[in-house]
């Protein structure tokens, strides 16, 4: 079930809330306890814009349990415009093929149903091609 675990991550999952380092101003996502750039303590919340571009991607055919009903699906490394890279599924691709450099934006989607009889739905960030 891991309810506290999913609850604890709600700001990241729903709002892409990371951190800005109070010492060196680096933007950090996912949140960390120590800034990877300057070694200072990192704890100031920062809302990312959710805009970025695809750094790399894969199309999953053999998926881990919990995701195997959804194949094929695309997972990407998305470089956010503020700097950090985030791992996320691509969605709403339609006929478009994913490509490196593709401009994308964050949306909230169902990630999976937690694998148990209570059927908890887990929502979180995915990225879609920027709407023109």
């Amino acid at each position, binding site marked *: 079930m891991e309810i506290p675990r999913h609850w604890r991550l709600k700001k990241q999952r729903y709002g892409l809330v990371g951190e800005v380092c109070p010492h060196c101003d680096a933007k950090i996502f996912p949140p960390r306890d120590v800034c990877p750039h300057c070694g200072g303590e990192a704890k100031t919340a920062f809302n990312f814009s959710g805009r970025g571009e695809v750094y*790399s991607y894969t199309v*999953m055919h053999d998926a881990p349990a919990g995701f*195997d009903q959804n194949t094929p699906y695309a*997972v990407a490394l998305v470089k956010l415009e503020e700097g950090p890279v985030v791992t996320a599924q691509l969605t709403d691709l339609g006929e478009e093929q994913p490509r490196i450099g593709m401009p994308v934006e964050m949306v909230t989607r169902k990630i999976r149903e937690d694998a148990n009889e209570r059927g908890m739905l887990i929502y979180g960030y995915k990225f879609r091609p920027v709407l023109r």
Partner: protein
Amino acid sequence: MRDVVIAGIGQIPVGEHWDLSLRTMAARAMLAAIKDGGGMKPQAMYIGNFLSPVLSHQENLGALLTDNAGLTGIEAFTVEAAGASGGAALRVGVNAVASGFIDCALVLGVEKITDMVGSEVEAAVAQSSDYDYEAMTGLSSAGQAALLMQRYLYEYNPPREAFGEFALIAHANGANNPNAFFRKAISREAYASAGMVSDPVNMFDMGPYADGAAAVLLTARDTAPKDLPHPLVRVSGSSVVIDTLALHDRPNPLAFDAACQSVERACSQAGIMPGDVDLFEVCDAFSIYALLSLEAAGLARHGEGWKMAVNGELSINGKLPILTMGGCKARGNPLGAVGVYQAVEAVQQLRGQAGRNQVKDARRALIQSLGGPASTAAAHILERLD
């Protein structure tokens, strides 16, 4: 600091051992290594294992596996570093013997995969990534490799089929290894038509997860039995290095920094350069990992490692043979046991016991196992003593 030597080796064939339990697989490798090492009784056992808590619902392997093999009373515990668990356990064993605290240590790598199948195994292996921020997106370990391979293709534009050379080398060598899972050479056509696992990683770009157990018996050079029928192999370099856990946190994911630094440190201890080894048991859990590891070790320029495979330099009779007993692709990938299989196979080469895959005049070997996409890298230098 004492010189550490490998006095004994043991292994079971890698494969789908429906009829063998975790404990029996382990006992066979342990007892074989003790016998091969002249019957020395170990005072400690360090176990490389990644997934037994998930796939076998079994923890406390130190007690289970020593108890079952009649070694109750010694020091024993698990060392976990995902796919680098075996290499990390070897590192712990080397430290124990080198320090003088332990005179004789058994290092065991064991993994029981096939009690579960398919997507359950994929989900378990994905626990080597950042669960909250990678695995929760539906990314598997093959998916991580695919993200690297896609980016490599984009940045360096190598011929797509060049990746297949790593599978061809592995299978050509696995064909002659009685302990390999797949003992059959494959063709370029077979590679080209293989189904996708995680595009662009196809079925032949990935070593099959399978059951296995391997062990080495470590002791100090001056406490080793004098009457062994085979030469001793010295561990002259030993290193474990970590990188960021998640791929997305690396400034350059293709650099494989931990793979680079672990080779540098092990070679520095041995007083050699990476190019001074006669063979390299590289981690080919995925073909892109073997390629990036060659480049990280400084054996090829970034973007050009695939040329070594295409030019035949990495085959048994080439300049730097790799995967000499089949690697993860053909011997099979028993995850947390890989680092110990590599040690056993390198010792076979250095003793001159590698049969049709014997690397001529092999005196020095480099072995490296990786946890995740080189989030952890364990490297060792092994040298034959005369």
